């Protein structure tokens, strides 16, 4: 146990009673030789029985007293990981889209390339669940926008599967966007001079719950994130 790398697996959960147990168990099932994985579930004031379910699982349950949204929930996990001396924190979705088997791949890529952040991408090998055509169009748009602003090509800018070291945790401790934080966070990394890159992963279709982005929400999402990207870039 002594010199294993300690990794906090941050799992934000809002009304994920259908899938959260399977996600936590799948993390606990893959303890690699050189790593100890600790699932940290952030219950974002769910209205279903997520709270009761995670209380009985082998994980660190963090129950928010009010609903903060995905960004605020993930930041809670980052604060926990940083305060408790974890070497790395990796974020995966609570709906089972991100297979935890890829966590060691992310960690190895970070060590090898000297990255501060590793992003799991569906679109390097184009394997696994590829999302819908409409969503891919939106993802392409953000890819183009981010490339135009930063010059960095990120094939899966909305991917919520990300691993970070302590330097990144410390940065995000003080500021992390509330809504749809993923594309905006890339600009933050870029502006603060962090090194980041992508690792090919295969994602699955969600096991339960609902996407936070659909219908008119999608239009708001595109608008909000575009504004956020531009202003985060200008903020420096």
């Amino acid at each position, binding site marked *: 146990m002594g010199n294993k790398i300690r990794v906090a697996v941050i799992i934000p959960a809002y009304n994920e009673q259908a899938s959260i147990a399977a996600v936590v168990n799948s993390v606990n099932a893959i303890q690699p030789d050189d790593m100890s994985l600790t699932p940290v579930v952030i219950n974002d004031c769910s209205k279903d029985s997520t709270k009761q379910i995670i209380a009985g699982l082998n994980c660190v349950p963090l129950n928010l007293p*009010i609903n903060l949204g995905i960004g605020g929930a993930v930041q809670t996990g980052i604060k926990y990981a940083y305060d408790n001396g974890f070497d790395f924190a990796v974020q995966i979705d609570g709906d089972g889209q991100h297979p935890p088997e890829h966590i060691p791949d992310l960690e190895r890529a970070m060590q090898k390339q000297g990255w501060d952040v590793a992003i799991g991408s569906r679109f390097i090998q184009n394997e696994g669940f590829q999302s819908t055509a409409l969503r891919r169009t939106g993802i392409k748009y953000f890819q183009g926008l981010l490339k135009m602003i930063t010059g960095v090509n990120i094939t899966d800018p909305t991917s919520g599967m990300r691993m970070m070291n302590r330097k990144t945790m410390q940065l995000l401790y003080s500021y992390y966007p509330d809504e749809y934080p993923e594309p905006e966070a890339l600009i933050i990394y870029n502006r603060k001079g962090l090194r980041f890159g992508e690792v090919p992963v295969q994602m699955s279709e969600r096991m339960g719950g609902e996407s936070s982005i659909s219908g008119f929400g999608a239009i708001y999402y595109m608008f909000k994130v575009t504004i956020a990207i531009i202003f985060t870039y200008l903020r420096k």
Partner: protein
Amino acid sequence: MERVQIIAIIVSLLFLAYVLWKIKQGQLREEYAFIWILSNLALIFLSVWRNALELFAHMFGVIAPPNLLFTGAIFAILIYLLHLSLTVSKLHMQNKTLAQEIALLKEKSGNRG
């Protein structure tokens, strides 16, 4: 003094009394009360001295005096709304930090409820 003038003065004074009462009750912070008292005094001033509006309109080169009043009032309201949006944003940030601290402290203390 015309009837409308008397009504305007009475309403303005009642409004002022309400604001002052709220401050006394501790339900309105002084920093916000300031702007309400100020705009109230302006209302009373314009009710008492009815020609003031015409005088100011002439000074600014506005042909119809009520337009000056509306323009000025809308501008002041927009600025105040912006101020409130800034306040709400700040409260939102503070609220978020507090909620996160609570979740982390509950876990630390072993109270996972």
